[in-house]
């Protein structure tokens, strides 16, 4: 195997070459070429779309191999804006060990496999590309050259779809030919940069199974039409439904002896190109592998042998190939759409055949030859014929690749619709199949879409990926007019006082800042993990301080004083459910999307398994208390990960309550949290004063006394800096309002501030009572009287009502009816001056005061 020496910290600069072409639909620029410049090395490597590239991965010895399908720029990605879309190849060592036996032979040293696995993430950062490499496609019986001319050359023979090895389809071959012709401009082995990027090929197989199954069914569907033409083949079809059972193999061979087989497979030549890119003959070594493999292989062989005989089938074949090749070349989705109808056009060949009895006859006449051959010496003939067809197909492809095919495509468009309906009608005979097929037919556009997605550039995953720029665009539309700049001194001050304004420094939190900074820095330097718990009442600058710390650390990391690290922030309040935290972390870490459970598994895997190179991660969890669950598994995991050495995870948690670990956490959780705690004390008045002066450094808008006053007021109440800033902001407004007279100085004075403070802190109850109607006031009075009479703080409505009536009589008010009084009572209740039960209880309704009795008395005195 080629060895790519590891070079740490080699800076490579990546830049686009050539003009970008704007993709209208996806809103990003696509490029044709990219150049990589090495630091300290003057040669540039140019990488073009369509070339084969090496991509850095976990294993330094064997970087990933892939074919570049598209280069584009994506603003939505966090790490790198230059993105590339690739078709992966897989090395034998990357195949899961449990599946390796499926190959049935020893792999050659330079052999790689076409990774035919749609669920694999093929959108990578362009900056992980190391170099290009030469990949040569080999026919099934070509021996991999042992005398390797160049270590950079790799060979492809089979494709691997997580389940089986299959031979490469002719289209793929055609593709390989092309890039080889355009030889790479520069070939210089480059050291692999070791930078951990999530290994893209290691996505789990959940999706894959489904997809493959669906593909199986599509291919089944494609086979069915042939049986309509020849009812004899029905048996075969049924067998085709269960290609896994060993009996299939035998019966397949038996049916292979049947006379109808060639005709069936004739049609299949046409269809097989659609269904999967794998129907190609295989080397002998594979014959002993799994029965499933064999069944597939065999049909492929028969088919191809028939293609050799049958001239009729070839035009069909031409068309498919023709339409496919351009589609593959340009990896545009629009192309894909055009592909779908033409694809449908292929199946339209079936009804058309039905209508032409003479053509069937012709074929029947030809039939005897092929089956005779196959039955007598199946193996040899098969091989021979496969070689023949292979060559022929290759020739055709070469030829067709050059010619324009737009005409045929358009001709086929109308036929597509007919074919869909036609095949649907005719597929009734076999119940099991018709069920399957009809469901397939009904979804036909989408299924054919799917099968088209098997082509290198377009897995369903990827159709999501291109959507990311679309997904990122949700944005409040930008304003039509620019925001006005603050005009006066007061406005400037108000701007600076807004909580959102980020100050240059955080005064009064130097000590805390230093502590957190030291903690995180030491963990980063030691390459270990750790937890820290930060508590404090709201508005004491916890989050701001941590942000500041992270900012400083990031600066330090950029200056190479610290190892680089990844920073992730989650907020418990911004999650709908505690388990969503996994999803958020995973998404911010790798950009993947997963369900909560799946994300938890992935994260655990990521943090608990040892990887050769990995940068540390700093995770900030705000509003920790909301992540509490009954089982506390979220908290447990969050604090458990850092304890593993490999994780290199530093967790900073923020919450309001100081004793949160003791109060709500189980022992095993709080013990993992450790003892690194810090509590932010509420600001004192001098600190608040300092903060305000710091914010208003260059703006002379406040009197010094005024600042002191507000600082003292707030410190006495809560020490909440946010409140402090809000009061000041309000004061500037009041000042501005009152300063419309020209003679005033335009400074915020103590009186303005006092007014603002009053506005914010004054209790509204008294004014509310003062402004209530006469009856409401007398009702409150009646309540007070009733309380005094009974000595309790609670009374039923009936009791209050009698008091109320008496009061009204005393004051000369008209007699209040029950309904009126009830309305009054509920009105007071809605303002929460009274606490009342739901009115269902009617007379027995219990009433309490929500205000102190003194307040009511005070309010009623006037």
């Amino acid at each position, binding site marked *: 195997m080629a060895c790519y020496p590891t070079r740490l910290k080699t800076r490579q600069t990546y830049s686009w070459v050539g003009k970008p072409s704007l993709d209208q639909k996806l809103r990003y620029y696509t490029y044709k070429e990219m150049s990589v410049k090495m630091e300290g090395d003057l040669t540039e490597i140019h990488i073009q779309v369509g070339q084969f590239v090496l991509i850095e991965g976990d294993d330094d010895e064997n970087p990933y191999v892939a074919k570049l399908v598209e280069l584009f720029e994506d603003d939505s990605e966090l790490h790198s804006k230059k993105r590339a879309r690739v078709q992966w190849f897989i090395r034998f060592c990357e195949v899961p060990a449990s599946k390796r036996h499926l190959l049935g032979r020893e792999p050659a040293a330079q052999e790689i496999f076409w990774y035919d696995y749609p669920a694999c993430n093929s959108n990578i950062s362009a900056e992980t590309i190391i170099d290009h490499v030469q990949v040569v496609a080999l026919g099934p019986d070509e021996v991999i050259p042992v005398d390797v001319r160049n270590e950079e050359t790799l060979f492809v023979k089979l494709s691997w779809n997580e389940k089986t090895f299959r031979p490469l389809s002719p289209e793929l071959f055609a593709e390989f030919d092309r890039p080889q012709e355009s030889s790479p401009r520069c070939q210089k082995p480059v050291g692999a940069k070791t930078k951990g990027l999530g290994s893209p090929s290691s996505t789990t197989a959940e999706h894959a199974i489904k997809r493959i199954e669906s593909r199986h069914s599509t291919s089944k569907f494609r086979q069915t039409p042939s049986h309509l033409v020849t009812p004899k083949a029905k048996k075969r079809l049924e067998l085709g439904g269960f290609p896994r059972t060993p009996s299939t193999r035998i019966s397949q061979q038996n049916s292979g002896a049947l006379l109808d087989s060639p005709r069936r497979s004739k049609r299949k030549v046409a269809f097989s190109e659609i269904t999967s890119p794998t129907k190609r003959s295989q080397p002998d070594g594979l014959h002993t592998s799994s029965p499933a493999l064999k069944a597939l292989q065999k049909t492929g062989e028969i088919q191809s042998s028939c293609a050799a005989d049958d001239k009729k089938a070839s035009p069909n074949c031409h068309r498919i190939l023709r339409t496919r090749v351009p589609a593959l070349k340009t990896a545009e989705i629009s192309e894909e759409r055009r592909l779908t109808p033409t694809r449908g056009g292929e199946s339209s060949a079936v009804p058309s055949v039905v209508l032409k009895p003479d053509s069937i006859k012709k074929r029947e006449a030809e039939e005897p030859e092929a089956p005779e051959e196959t039955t007598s010496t199946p193996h040899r003939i098969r091989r021979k014929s496969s070689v023949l067809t292979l060559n022929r197909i290759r020739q055709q492809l070469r030829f067709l690749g050059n010619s324009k095919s737009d005409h045929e495509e358009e001709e086929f468009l109308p036929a597509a619709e007919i074919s869909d309906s036609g095949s649907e009608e005719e597929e009734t005979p076999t119940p099991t199949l018709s069920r399957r097929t009809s469901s397939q037919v009904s979804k036909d556009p989408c299924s054919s879409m799917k099968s088209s997605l098997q082509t290198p550039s377009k897995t369903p995953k990827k159709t999501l990926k291109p959507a990311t720029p679309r997904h990122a665009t949700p944005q409040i539309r930008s304003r039509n007019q620019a925001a006005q700049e603050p005009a006066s001194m007061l406005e400037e001050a108000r701007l600076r006082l807004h909580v959102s304004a980020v100050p240059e420094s955080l005064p009064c939190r130097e000590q805390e800042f230093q502590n957190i900074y030291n903690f995180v820095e030491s963990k980063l330097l030691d390459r270990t993990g750790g937890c820290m718990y930060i508590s404090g009442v709201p508005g004491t600058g916890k989050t701001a301080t941590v942000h500041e710390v992270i900012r400083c650390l990031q600066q330090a990391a950029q200056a190479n004083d610290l190892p680089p690290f990844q920073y992730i922030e989650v907020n418990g309040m911004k999650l709908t459910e505690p388990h969503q935290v996994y999803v958020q972390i995973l998404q911010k870490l790798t950009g993947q999307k997963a369900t909560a459970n799946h994300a938890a598994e992935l994260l655990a895997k990521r943090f608990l398994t040892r990887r050769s190179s990995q940068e540390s991660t700093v995770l900030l969890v705000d509003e920790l208390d909301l992540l509490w669950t009954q089982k506390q598994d979220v908290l447990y995991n969050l604090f458990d990960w850092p304890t593993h050495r490999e994780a290199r995870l530093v967790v900073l948690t923020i919450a*309001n309550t100081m004793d949160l670990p003791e109060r709500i956490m189980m022992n095993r959780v709080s013990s993992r949290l450790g003892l690194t705690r810090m509590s932010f004390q509420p600001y004192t008045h001098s600190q608040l004063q300092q903060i305000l002066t710091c914010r208003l450094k260059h703006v002379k808008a406040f009197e010094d006394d005024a600042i002191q006053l507000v600082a003292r007021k707030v410190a006495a109440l809560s020490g909440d800096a946010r409140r402090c800033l809000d009061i000041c902001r309000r004061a500037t407004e009041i000042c501005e309002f009152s300063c419309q007279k020209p003679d005033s100085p335009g400074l915020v004075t103590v009186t303005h501030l006092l007014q603002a403070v009053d*506005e914010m802190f004054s209790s509204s109850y008294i004014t509310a009572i003062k402004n209530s109607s*006469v009856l409401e006031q007398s009702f409150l009075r009646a309540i007070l009287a009733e309380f005094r009479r009974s000595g309790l703080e609670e009374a039923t409505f009936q009791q209050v009502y009698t008091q109320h009536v008496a009061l009204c009589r005393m004051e000369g008010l008209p007699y209040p009816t029950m*309904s009126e009084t009830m309305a009054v009572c509920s009105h007071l209740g*809605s303002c929460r001056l009274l606490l009342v039960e739901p009115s269902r209880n009617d007379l027995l309704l219990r009433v309490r005061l929500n205000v102190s009795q003194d307040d009511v008395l005070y309010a009623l005195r006037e």
Partner: protein
Amino acid sequence: HLIELLKRTAIHGESNSVLIIGPRGSGKTTLINHALKELMEVEEVSENILQVHLNGLLQINDKIALKEITRQLNLENVVGDKVFGSFAENLSFLLEALKKGDRSSSCPVIFILDEFDLFAHHKNQTLLYNLFDISQSAQTPLAVIGLTCRLDILELLEKRVKSRFSHRQIHLMNSFGFPQYLKIFKEQLSLPAEFPDKIFTERWNENVQGLTEDRSVREVLQKHFNVNKNLRSLHMLLMLALNRVTSSHPFMTAADLMEANQLCSMDSKANIVHGLSVLEICLIIAMKHLNDIYEEEPFNFQMVYNEFQKFVQRKAHSVYNFEKPVVMKAFEHLQQLELIRPVERTSVNTQREYQLMKLLLDNTQIMNALQKYPNCPTDVRQWATSSLSWL
């Protein structure tokens, strides 16, 4: 004040949050609508601003609220065919959308949360937290305006949500006195000058002027004002009165108003009592006596029946002695009218005769109703005034 605030959000891109507190019918919504209307007249604002109206009664949880926000912000078309998935996805999507912007570039959004107190009951107050958090950070400029009638709204907010709220409150009270009330009454009734029939307008307005000076009208209004300062209830009263105006009776009179007032202030329960049969009245009287004797203790049917029997035995000549099932039926009818109500903790398996009940009528109500009751036998009336009258 509110307009100033909104203007600043719209023009300077400053984020703000404010609560408008006031009792029902004090014109909170009118105020905000007026402010927005005025704001929209300024040209540079109107093409610049996005509004989101939410109502706590409609958006009963954050999930629905989020969907509504996306709809009102027209973010749907951005999302395109992407199926809106889980609640979590929605939230992150919207947050991302709102985070994207910054002070100067993105369009300010005005959130109007009607029935703000109901939003505070949502789980974790996630929506409020996020809205206030955005308004407190350098993201898309937001103006969050909450409308509520609860004076204790701030106590409903969690402390971290509270800390992020700017503590601006605008209190709206019906602080006007009676002279202003009269003026409003006059303004509401007067026809505008644009009314097509000029002569009628003149005469109508004269009539209204006359009405405001009429003593009885003033009395009615004063009474209404005492009960409720709410303008909406005034509208209700006027509506009732105006319904009597026809082509043959073209002008509103003081009598109309009086009648309307009577309709408004009628005691609903007394009306029900008027429609009861003599037997049912007797039962209610029996219950009243029981209440007097046992001091508000709950009673059951058997006790009421016994009391009734005692009365009937004394005055057999005036009241027909009903059979027990008939009395039972009457009793059940009273229960259906919710004039009596079973005590809460009664077990289901007690016999109907012994189920404990409570009377939901006050003594004074009963007496008042009896006085107006047509064709009430004098014996019954006497019995009602004193439980000992049969002696």
